[in-house]
């Protein structure tokens, strides 16, 4: 018979303030097989753990129940504690009398105490049926994958590569650089975005440890920490990168012009293009949706009647090294990696949803990121700020904050974190570009919590003479050449009307398109908006809940550049902590098949989300299920799918769970 020890934790007053510890201890004394009961002020402290270890040795305990906080918090801690006293670490059960009990029933102490006793009773019944479990060592691929080539992903890739590990950096766009590449200057120092970003982009391209895949997307991820298998779709550029010299003749001569995405439609680009001059890699791609020759080929393939479109092929004819390759096709690459950093970044809120602001109807109502392109020396106007409608220089500029942020109507309760600061920055830059410019900034609150941020807002107010008006805008309409902005100054309680030349909407941040789908294929969670969820918002801010998958940048939440870079480095360190281990330890709490009960219906295989069920043929010729322990996550779906109870979950066996339920009725 097993000797069971029960340790009840006070957790300071977290538990003891609600649950009557003495009563729980007295009840535990009477539970079957319990030979020792003790309490601890803080079980997780050094003193508490030592007390548990000493009790195990002195009382010859064979199983341990610790009634304390959630196993998510300290199960790993206490497994080590009991192991140090010579017990198998899996002969431990945690009764969660904090999150499941004292915290949620703080208004009813008697009921909380009763529930705590029942939780302990269940844990005792379960641990009595625990079996010793043993981990296995498994190998790992010492290579990392970074998804997203913005500043967060670049930082993570460089840090890991500099630590000596090979990294694959996958970027969906034809170039790395992300949103930061579109910015003119950065707050609060006003250093030029390109000047600090471009060297890092070049470093990525030249780094011997980094394999850069642009114009590529992660299609699927299988496997587990240390042993992921990733399918990457490499889209065809139709340009042979080994021949191209980036001379630029092709995109200069291409006759097809379309609005450039990089400049948010403020200028044209060709059908063969690089998004911007400093693109890395500086290899152009042919935009299949707009290339004339591709359109011609499609026309011919459809076999339609009528006039054929022109064949064009000017780029091919003019390319000095003959790098145009029409035969190039999409390819699927399969890579093995040990850790993954997800840095999929953001896109801006669709401001046209605010019909009252006239965005999309009035050309001179633009977004913050469009203004960045107008301010940028490499932008469509080479840094000359002009109105998109008539090319004149705006003198009165109105900024509207919280467009798609802090607005429940739009389903966006959250603050986008950067808009207050970039509005101030843009007001300063506008004044630098043209001293006659007067900026008005409509705000709800000014959020300037970062280092040097509040001072920067003062600078916008005092040096750039930006006028801050607290209030929301109700309406914007065109009156001749002017845009009439109507709103309320809520401090004065008076309506305001400003005749503006340019209106800038500070559009909020939302997760990139496709981020949810990627999160699904990675089996990581995301919130209602599609931002990735951290393993712990404070203590594990760059880890996902899936081991081996880490998060960085605005994929988690709106963040500014310093924050994103810090997260990129942090995620890199977390990934390196996986990659630098000699081997990984498998979790022994996995499913197991009873071959005598299995009928080979394979309901388990259909239920398994991790492809962890294989088949095997027994000596008598029966085909039955078998668990691939390295893929199994121990979720138990197969167990519930199995009618014949041939599946069981080690550490959460049917016997153990039923014992818990039965204990409640005794």
């Amino acid at each position: 018979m097993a000797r069971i020890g029960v340790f009840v934790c006070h957790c300071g007053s977290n538990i003891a303030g609600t649950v009557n510890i003495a009563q729980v201890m007295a009840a535990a004394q009477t539970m079957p097989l319990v030979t020792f009961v003790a309490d601890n002020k803080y079980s997780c402290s050094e003193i508490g753990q030592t007390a548990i270890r000493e009790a195990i040795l002195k009382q010859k305990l064979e199983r341990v129940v610790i009634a304390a906080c959630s196993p998510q918090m300290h199960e790993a801690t206490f497994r080590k504690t009991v192991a140090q006293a010579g017990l198998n670490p899996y002969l431990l059960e945690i009764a969660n009398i904090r999150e499941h009990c004292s915290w949620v029933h703080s208004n009813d102490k008697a009921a909380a105490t009763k529930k705590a006793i029942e939780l302990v009773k269940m844990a005792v019944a379960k641990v009595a049926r625990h079996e010793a479990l043993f981990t296995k060592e498994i190998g790992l691929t010492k290579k990392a994958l970074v998804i997203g080539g913005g500043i967060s992903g670049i930082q993570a890739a460089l840090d890991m590569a500099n630590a000596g590990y090979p990294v694959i950096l996958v970027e969906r766009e034809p170039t790395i650089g992300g949103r930061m590449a579109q910015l003119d200057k950065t707050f609060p120092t006003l250093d030029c975005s390109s000047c600090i970003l471009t060297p890092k982009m070049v470093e990525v391209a030249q780094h011997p440890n980094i394999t850069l895949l642009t114009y590529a997307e992660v299609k699927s991820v299988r496997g587990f920490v240390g042993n992921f298998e990733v399918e990457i779709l490499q889209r065809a550029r139709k340009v042979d990168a080994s021949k191209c010299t980036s001379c630029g003749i092709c995109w200069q001569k291409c006759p097809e012009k379309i609005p450039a995405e990089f400049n948010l439609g403020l200028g044209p680009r060709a059908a063969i293009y690089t998004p911007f001059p400093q693109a890395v890699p500086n290899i152009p791609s042919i935009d299949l949706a707009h290339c004339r020759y591709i359109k011609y080929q499609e026309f011919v393939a459809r076999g339609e009647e009528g006039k054929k479109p022109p064949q064009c092929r000017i780029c091919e004819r003019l390319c000095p090294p003959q790098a145009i390759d029409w035969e190039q096709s999409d390819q699927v690459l399969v890579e093995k990696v040990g850790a993954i950093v997800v840095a999929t970044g953001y896109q801006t809120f669709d401001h046209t949803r605010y019909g009252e602001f006239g965005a999309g109807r009035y050309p001179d109502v633009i977004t913050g990121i469009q203004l960045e392109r107008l301010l940028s020396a490499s932008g469509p106007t080479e840094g000359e700020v002009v109105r998109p409608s008539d090319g004149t220089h705006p003198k009165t500029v109105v900024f509207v904050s919280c467009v798609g942020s802090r607005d429940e109507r739009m389903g966006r309760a959250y603050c986008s974190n950067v808009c207050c600061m970039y509005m101030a920055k843009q007001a300063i830059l506008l004044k630098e570009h043209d001293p006659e410019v007067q900026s008005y900034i409509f705000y709800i609150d000014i959020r300037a919590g970062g280092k040097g941020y509040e001072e920067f807002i003062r600078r916008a107010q005092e040096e750039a003479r930006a006028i801050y008006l607290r209030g929301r805008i109700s309406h914007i309409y065109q009156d001749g050449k002017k845009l009439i902005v109507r709103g309320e100054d809520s401090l004065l309680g008076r309506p305001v009307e400003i005749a503006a030349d340019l209106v800038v909407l500070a559009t909020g941040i939302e997760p990139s398109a496709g981020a949810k789908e990627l999160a699904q294929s990675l089996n990581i969670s995301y919130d209602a908006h599609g931002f990735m969820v951290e393993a712990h918002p404070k203590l594990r801010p760059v880890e996902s809940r899936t081991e081996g998958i880490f998060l960085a940048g605005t994929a988690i939440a709106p963040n500014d550049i310093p924050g994103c870079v810090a997260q990129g480095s942090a995620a890199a360190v977390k990934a390196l902590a996986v990659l630098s281990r000699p081997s990984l330890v498998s979790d022994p709490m996995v499913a197991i098949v009873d071959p005598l009960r299995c009928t080979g219906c394979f309901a388990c295989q259909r239920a398994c989300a991790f492809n962890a069920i294989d088949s095997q043929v027994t000596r008598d010729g029966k085909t039955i299920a078998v668990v691939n322990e390295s893929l199994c996550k121990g979720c138990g779906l197969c167990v519930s799918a199995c009618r014949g109870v041939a599946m069981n979950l080690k550490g959460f066996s049917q016997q153990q769970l039923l014992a818990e339920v039965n204990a409640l009725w005794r």
Partner: protein
Amino acid sequence: MNQAIRDKAKELLASGAVSCVIGYDVGSDGINARPFFAYTEEEADGLAFDQTCTHNLVKYLIDRAGKATAIVVKPCDARALTVLINEKQVKREEVFIIGAVCHGIIESTWGQKGSDLQGRCQTCTQHTPLVYDLLVGEPMAEPTPKAPLDHRAATLANMSVAERAAFWAEQFQRCLRCNACRQVCPGCYCAECFVDQLDPEWVGIRIDLPEKWLWNTIRAFHLAGRCVGCDECQRVCPVNIPLGLLNHKLEEEVATLFDFRPGVKADVPAPLETFKKDEKLGIGE
């Protein structure tokens, strides 16, 4: 029809394509059909099919795994066979399916032929099996769906939870735990049924209402999304528990929630053993 079955059976046995033909012959009362296994051409002369062929024979195929077999199936049996094929208990390539056009099975007792169709056949929507290698009998237009015959189905649906519980308590109270329902059910092929397991002991050995209740409801849940409604369990129940009511209710629930009827399509897994992202059923959203 009988001749077509016999001819095919003889041909298959003679060529060695199959080593057994499972079908029906006339029972010893001279009226009711009974399951019949023909291993030789001579035995095949005994095969017959009529409106007393109530048994669902497909469960016999599980024990003939690895041996090529021909089987006579009605439309409902054919669906049960598809379930077994989907659940990898029967290999399609090992079975030659003789599908019989079915006009419905009549209610009859030992030595006495009845005149009314069985309840399940009165509401049945199929005369022709969905899957077969050879079809015997004249194909006919499929009947239109009818409301369930058993008036208790509608009554039950309108009852309060407490009233329904009282109804089933009365029904299950009669259960002898003889397991005839399980033995006859094509969906019940577990190596060791949960009710027989001792570790853990899911259902106690006592023959009393709580255990009877557990047994019957767990079995019904194990059949949800798998039961084809052949009502064999109800037919063999010695104490006339209306198990069909329970199974049909779950069949309708599954059809409403998942747009799924068991045994209609090959290679479509039962909804309760799969997860689709769009199947949220209003939970948690």
